[in-house]
């Protein structure tokens, strides 16, 4: 058994999944005081009758999202990867909601999430990857991110209407850990380096 551990902590509900060869074998999500990643992982390993050593790699959502909760996931994932000597990969929240929304709609997906101080994050998932991301006022960042034509929207803003355009609501609001196992996302190169969550100052929002 060689499992992928997937951890999603970009919002108040924490998700964890274990899977093998693109199949999810265990998943759980917790809120409030029960969102303890260590307990969630122990529960999953016990359910599969597995030891931590069967974890072959670790995938974790690195945002954009809630900065404090993203750090919970990254700290746990990095610690586990260091102790087990396994690679850890960072996936963008926009890849996770974008992949599910694209599968449901067949459209390019405008991914959105709330940020601090009334601002927002936006990005475009083109069916395989996130091609552009911005941080700022929603009305400022949507026009340069959203392409012409029909576009689905996923994330924090269900009834998004911006610059005279309306978008097709995909029904996908929050990322799920399982998408890092069964989401048919582009693979990451193996790396021993720890991962760090995106912040509002990350270069990806300016490039």
């Amino acid at each position, binding site marked *: 058994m060689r499992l992928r551990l997937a951890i999603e902590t970009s919002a108040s509900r924490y998700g964890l999944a274990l899977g093998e060869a693109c199949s999810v074998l265990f998943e759980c999500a917790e809120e409030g005081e029960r969102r303890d*990643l260590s307990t969630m992982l122990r529960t999953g390993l016990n359910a599969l009758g597995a030891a931590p050593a069967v974890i072959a790699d670790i995938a974790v959502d690195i945002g954009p999202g809630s900065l404090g909760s993203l750090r919970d996931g990254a700290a746990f994932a990095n*610690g586990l990867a*260091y102790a087990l000597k396994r690679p850890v990969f960072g996936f963008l929240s926009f890849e996770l909601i974008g992949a599910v929304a694209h599968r449901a709609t067949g459209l390019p997906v405008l991914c959105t999430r709330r940020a601090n101080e009334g601002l927002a994050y936006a990005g475009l998932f083109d069916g395989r990857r996130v091609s552009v991301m911005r941080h700022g006022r929603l009305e400022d960042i949507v026009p340069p991110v959203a392409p012409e034509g029909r576009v689905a929207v996923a994330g924090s803003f269900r009834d998004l209407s911006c610059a005279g355009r309306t978008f097709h609501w995909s029904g996908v609001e929050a990322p799920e850990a399982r998408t890092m196992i069964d989401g048919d996302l582009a693979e990451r190169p193996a790396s021993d380096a720890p991962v760090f969550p995106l912040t509002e100052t990350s270069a990806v929002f300016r490039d």
Partner: protein
Amino acid sequence: MTERALILGIETSCDDTAAALVDREGTVHAAATASQLDIHATHGGVYPELASRAHLQTILPVIDQVLREAKVAGPDLHTIAVTRGPGLIGSLLVGVNTATALGLAWGVPTVGVNHLRGHLRSAELEGRRIAYPALVLLVSGGHTVLARMAGPGDIAVLGASRDDSVGEAFDKVGRMLGLPFPGGPHVDRLAATGAATVALPRPLLHEGYEFSFSGLKSAVARSLNQSPAPAPADLAASFVAACLDVLIGKCRRALLAEPVASLVIVGGVAASPPLRLAAEALCAELGVALCVPPQRWATDNAAMIALAAWDYLDRGQAPPVTAQARLPLTSW
């Protein structure tokens, strides 16, 4: 299990990322700290969000450094001890999540330790021993507490600060005087060049065991607004003298009220040379032993967290390994 039973301590409650390996006797086998001083200096104080980000960057390199230095493999550790509070919640969470992940992967138990209990045990690092019962003065950037300890972990609080801690007052006065952050050591150094000629209050000096430093800090601000303003060195000297009068005065009252074997002074302000000198004089006068941590272990560190964890194991205390921004000294 290694022949040396070692606890890995992890401390991330504020602005230092620290790890240490400590045995039951308090011998420190390895220790490392990543300071965030440069990050926060421009803000004139600790900026919580930046502190959390820096902890995440440095925690694994710091842990890796101590394990390599002591040639210890993770699975051979006796226990992992991590500060669970009190402190900045985002900073605490980085430590707690890292520690629980390491513990799960290595199959090593993880203990969540009260940072304040860590400070109390810092006076017994590197072979030093506290003579019990003891009077304890905990003075740091976040806390000013006077307590009695009948034995390790057996604590009764006599009084605490109603507002600012003494360390916070030092830092704020340092900022008023245009000194670099953290202000404490700079205020001490400046005070050594001046004379205590400015009249400043000694809040609550004659009332019980509680403290208050907010009014004293405001009095320093008012003095600076006078015309002509006192010389900065004289104002610093007057401020330090007022703090010492209150701290030592409360210790004197407690020592006279109920005799103990020793006076223990811990926390970041315990590194203050004038406080150490004043405490030495008091203890010599009253015939009690003075116990202060080695200078290196007076400020926040992971060695004290690891040493305190042995008390938890001995007493079967296993509080949840979850971050708590507020945690009283009497909690485990």
